[in-house]
Every structure is written in structure tokens, then in C-alpha cells.
């Protein structure tokens, strides 16, 4: 999972709200006046589906929107290709306001730029695997022989070679979803929407599909918006994760960021049972430290500091230690890559009492001590006494 934060923003969601009911505009005014979800339902029978959602989704990343059922995540993803129209707000894809597209421009947008994978596969049962895969291409008016050729490539890509003449009803759930994935990839759309795409599959198959998606993504670099209710899936796939509850965003960040610093009580309870050591990377925990040229220069600092030997090598020293000789007290630094997870650092940390030097692309990003690690892995006690997560 490379960090793509430097890439350009592909999808920008600005202040999007969605209200279901007979008169959403009037209800929207009430919500802007400060009315809450429960109150709105009580007083006017309108359901606040989404409230003031803001998101930036970058080119080439997998952006996971996570929430339990009823949180509005499936509603939100349907806004990106306008299967659902928002009550208020803007959605920009490559800087263009999707909501301003006319009917034919919207169809063109759906044919070329964005495609979708569905929870219950949504394949056409009367068409063969190949016909399903090339559905989007034929809708776009591609000639059949060319579409078939393209379709066969996609079928091979998802590992369904030999099944192209089967009907969906003859395939297992996992295979059907591969067809769904191939169908979405066939149109060569740069944005892929996946609505709980793997939720209907049993755990082993789901894991296979997750791995396959990561593999395909490593090759194709699509911009993926992935919806799930499964935190492990979110952490495994997502470069960024947005947590949604009752139609409101609770937190947006990297998986590690959310685990280390949950924005509120709800998120904290959500992430409580995750094995952080396997998710949090050393880079996320590294404390940036200045690099000193000599032990003397570091005398004003405290704790462990980094000393450069002037030849590109680095050592560690406890600042303020009594040694005044130039070299004594400086110990060789053990390095670890920023992308390694904390679990991989356990061994090195346990053998010495000094911190590890965290390297990111050949540069020092900071030090990682065992105290920091323990603090990050600690589960807050308060959370233990809370009632289980409710929706």
C-alpha cells in the first residue's frame, strides 16, 4: 500500500447531504437550521441519509468508506455515479461537477469514466459470462468482435478463463463476483466503485478476492472507492478510510492514523479489537528528531538523539550523558523501514534498550522507542466498560 498522498484529487465531495422523504428541500432547510436526524424523522417523516459529507479521493488510491448498516455508506457511493441525486452539495470528478451533467453527458460519464461492482453481483442471469463482461462495452456501442476480444482479456485477468460460455447461475458466489469485477474493469473506467463487493462471500473466498483486488490494483492503479462494514477489510485494502455513522463522517484518515488517534468515542470503540501491531507501521509512530553533528551540539537536548558521523552514517546517543569524549556513548543505530508494521519491530526493540531508527526511502524519518510502541498499542480502559457497539 504505497502512500499516494502526493497525487492529485480525483473525486471531491463537497458538503453533500441527502434527505429521503416527500419534500427534501424543506427538510434540508430544517437540518441547516440545526435539526437532528431523530428530530427530523419525528417531526416531518424525513430521513436524513447523509449530512454535510466532505471527502477528497486521490488518483490511484483505494479509498474505503466504512460504516455499519444504516450508516449511509451505500447511499453515499451511489452519489458518485448519480444513481442517487444529493439534496445539497457538489460532487466534482476531475474538477467537473457531476451534478451539472445532462442526461446524455451523464451516460457518457458512466460509460467511460466510472464503473461499479455490486454487493449481490447484479449479473444478468440470461446472459453468459462473456456477454455480461462486455455489457458495458456494447452499451457504449463497441463492435461485437472487438468487445469479445476485450472481454476475454478481462475474463483471463480475473482468472475465469474457460468459463466464458457459462451462465452466472452455474457459478459460485466468488466466481460470480469475479464476473462483476471483470465487467467493471472491461470499460477501462479509471474510477471503480465497489459497493460491499465482497460482503456476500464466505470468509476464505473473501480473502482471495481481497488479495486479487490488491494484485489487480497494483497493476492498474485505478481510483477505487470501496464500501465495507468490515474493519479488517477496510484496513487491508484502504489507503484512506472514512468512517461513517448515521450519515455523518466521524473520521477520515489512514488506517494507522485512525487506530492510533481515533477521533471520538464511537471510532475508538469501533477499532478497539483490532490487532494494531499488525496494522500500524513504524513510520506512523516514528518521532521526528533533529540530527546533530556532534555529541556536544546535542547537549541541550534530552532523551535519545541522532548523531551524524559526517560520512553519511548515523549513531544514537542519550543526550546529556556524562561522556564528553567525541565518540564514546554513541551507539550504532538499528534501522527499520517505515512501511514495516510494528509487529516486525518487536524483536529488535526487545533485544536492546535503545530506539530504532526509522528509514523512509533512504531518509531518516525519526526514532521509535518501545514506550511509544506500548502507548500506541494500549487499549483505553474506559472503552472496556462501554456497552457493545450499537448501530
Amino acid at each position, binding site marked *: 500500500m504505497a502512500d499516494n498522498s502526493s497525487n492529485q484529487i480525483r473525486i471531491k465531495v463537497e458538503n453533500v447531504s441527502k434527505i429521503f422523504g416527500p419534500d427534501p428541500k424543506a427538510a434540508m432547510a430544517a437540518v441547516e437550521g440545526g435539526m437532528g436526524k431523530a428530530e427530523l424523522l419525528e417531526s416531518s417523516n424525513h430521513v436524513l441519509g447523509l449530512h454535510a459529507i466532505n471527502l477528497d479521493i486521490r488518483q490511484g488510491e483505494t479509498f474505503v468508506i466504512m460504516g455499519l448498516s444504516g450508516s449511509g455508506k451505500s447511499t453515499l457511493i*451511489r452519489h458518485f*455515479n448519480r*444513481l442517487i441525486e444529493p439534496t445539497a452539495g457538489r460532487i466534482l470528478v476531475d474538477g467537473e461537477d457531476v451534478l451539472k451533467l445532462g442526461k446524455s453527458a*451523464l*451516460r*457518457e*460519464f*458512466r*460509460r*467511460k469514466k*466510472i*464503473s*461499479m461492482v*455490486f*454487493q*449481490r453481483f*447484479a*449479473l*444478468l*442471469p*440470461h446472459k453468459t459470462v462473456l456477454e455480461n463482461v462486455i*455489457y*458495458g462495452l456494447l*452499451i*457504449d456501442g463497441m463492435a461485437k468482435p472487438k468487445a469479445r476480444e476485450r472481454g476475454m482479456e478481462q475474463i483471463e485477468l480475473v482468472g475465469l478463463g474457460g468459463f466464458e460460455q457459462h*451462465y*452466472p*447461475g*452455474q457459478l459460485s458466489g466468488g466466481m460470480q463476483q469475479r464476473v462483476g469485477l471483470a*465487467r467493471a474493469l472491461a*470499460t477501462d473506467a479509471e474510477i471503480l*466503485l465497489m459497493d460491499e463487493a465482497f460482503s456476500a462471500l464466505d470468509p476464505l473466498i473473501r480473502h482471495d478476492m481481497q488479495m486479487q483486488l490488491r494484485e489487480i490494483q497494483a497493476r492498474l492503479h485505478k481510483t477505487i472507492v470501496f464500501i465495507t462494514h468490515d474493519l479488517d477489510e477496510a484496513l487491508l485494502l484502504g489507503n484512506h478510510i472514512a468512517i461513517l455513522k448515521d450519515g455523518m463522517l466521524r473520521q477520515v484518515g489512514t488506517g494507522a492514523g485512525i487506530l492510533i488517534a481515533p477521533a471520538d468515542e464511537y471510532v475508538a470503540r469501533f477499532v478497539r479489537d483490532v490487532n494494531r501491531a499488525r496494522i500500524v507501521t513504524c513510520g506512523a509512530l516514528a518521532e521526528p528528531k533533529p540530527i546533530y553533528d556532534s555529541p556536544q551540539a546535542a547537549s541541550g537536548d534530552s532523551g535519545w538523539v541522532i548523531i551524524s558521523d559526517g560520512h553519511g552514517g548515523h549513531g544514537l546517543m542519550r543526550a546529556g550523558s556524562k561522556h564528553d569524549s567525541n565518540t564514546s556513548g554513541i551507539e550504532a543505530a538499528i534501522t527499520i523501514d517505515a512501511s514495516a508494521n510494528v509487529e516486525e519491530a518487536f524483536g529488535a526493540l526487545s533485544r536492546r534498550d535503545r530506539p530504532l531508527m526509522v528509514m523512509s526511502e533512504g531518509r531518516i524519518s525519526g526514532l521509535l522507542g518501545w514506550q511509544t510502541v506500548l502507548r500506541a498499542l494500549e487499549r483505553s480502559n474506559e472503552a472496556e466498560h462501554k456497552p457493545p457497539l450499537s448501530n
Partner: protein
Amino acid sequence: MSNGFPELLDIRAFSIALDDGFTQIVIKYGETLEWIFLPVLKMLLGMEKALLWLPWWVVLLGLTGLAWTASRRWGITLAVAALTFGIGLIGVWEQAMATIALMLVATMLAVLIGLPVGIGMSRSNRMQTTTLPVLDIMQTMPIFVYLIPFVMLFGPGKIPALLATIVFAIPPVIRLTNLGIRQVDREIIEAAQSFGASPLQVLFSAQIPLALPAILAGINQTTMMALSMVVIASMIGAGGLGYQVLQGIQRLEISKGLLAGLGIVFLAIIFDRIAQSYGRRVHKTLKLED
């Protein structure tokens, strides 16, 4: 009124106005309407003639072949062949051909009109709420009531019989087309839309194929209802098996009524089997639960 119910409406004046008004319509538009329906009449007569012109064994082979294509099962195919043979055996072949012609043309027109109406209903809730009560009335109003205006417009004959049959037989195909399309899985419709399919593309690539079993069930019911109208339609000149039954009543001939009635039953079984087995096969290809 003798029971003292207050006369709030002047029913007599209303009746006179309605009757007079309709008579005016008949005088003004009767000929135009007859002219409009001339092609339909020609089609009906043409089909009747063709069926009678064909040697009986060709019709038998045709129906048997149809049964085989629809069902791919020997049992049904043989039953259809035997029943068709039976119609000739009990001596009502000619009348049966006239009845088949009327039924087929009525069903064809009912489907031609009913499909678009059903599709329209499935796409608009307002159209559904206005059309459903009309269908209810069409199905509960005694059939004889339809006969009056049609006979007035066209005079006794095949056209009013055909139109009354269509009015009576069309509701199932409309209802089931509407229902079938509305029951198509939402996610599949969304999938089609998400790939940029236009409403017409969604209709023809997803909605109609997936609603086909329901639509076929509707067409089957429509066929059966058209067949059940033949006796009543014969009162205004439809001819065919129904007329035989009517004659049986008028002359008090049990045998005549019974044989013609049997002929109707045979026809019903033949067309029901063909339509049903075809519907079942479509269902199977959609689900493929093998």
C-alpha cells in the same frame, strides 16, 4: 320510489342523455370506426380462411411442432397431437378453426396493446394508480355490458365480438407485465444504469428479459380468457364453437352443446400446455438452477 329512497339524481334524464349521446356517436362515427377496423376484420377472416384451407393434418403437425419447440418434452407434444386429432374426431374441426382464429387475433392485439400499457405502468406510479381501478372495472363488469356499445357501433358480427374479447382478455397481460418489470432486482437495474445504459437499453437488456416469465404467464392467462369469451361472443356473431353451444341451448340439443364444449376444452388444454411449458423453459434459462 316506492321504498322512499330520496331521488337525489335524475337517473332517467341521465339515461336518456347517455343513450341519445351514444346514438349520436354511432351515427357520426360509426362508419369511420368500421373503416378503421376493416384491416382487423380482414386479418381475422384471412386467418380463418387459411386455417380452413389447410389440410387438417398440416394444422395438426403445426400445433404438434409448436408444442415440441415450446416444451421439448414428448409427453406434452403427444398430448397436444392427440387433443388436436380429437377435435376433428368429434366433428367440430371447422368451428374450432374459426374459434382459434378469433382467439389468436384477439390475443395478438391484446398483447400488442397490453405490453406497452404494462411497461408504461411499471415506469410511472401515477399511471399505475389510475390504470389499476380501470382494470378492476374491466374484469368485474359483466361481460354482456360490453356487448351493447360494440354491437351498436358495428352491428352484430366478428368485429364487435373481437373487441369485446380483447377488452375482457387484456387485463392479465397488462397487470403481469407491470408486476414483472417492477419485481426485477433493483441492483440489476442499477448495474445496467451504472454502465450508462439509456432507459430503453435498460428496458430491453434487463427489465423485459427478466420479467419475461411473468409476461408469458400474463399472455397465457389472456389466451385462456379470450377462449372463455367465445361462447358469449358468439351471441353477437362470432361464430365458431361458441355458436354451436348457443345453438345447443336454443334447440335444446345436449349432444351439440356437449361436443362443442368438449372442443373448447381441448383447445384450452392445447394452448395452455404450449404456453405454460414455454414459460417454464424461459424460467429455467433465467435461473439455471440445475
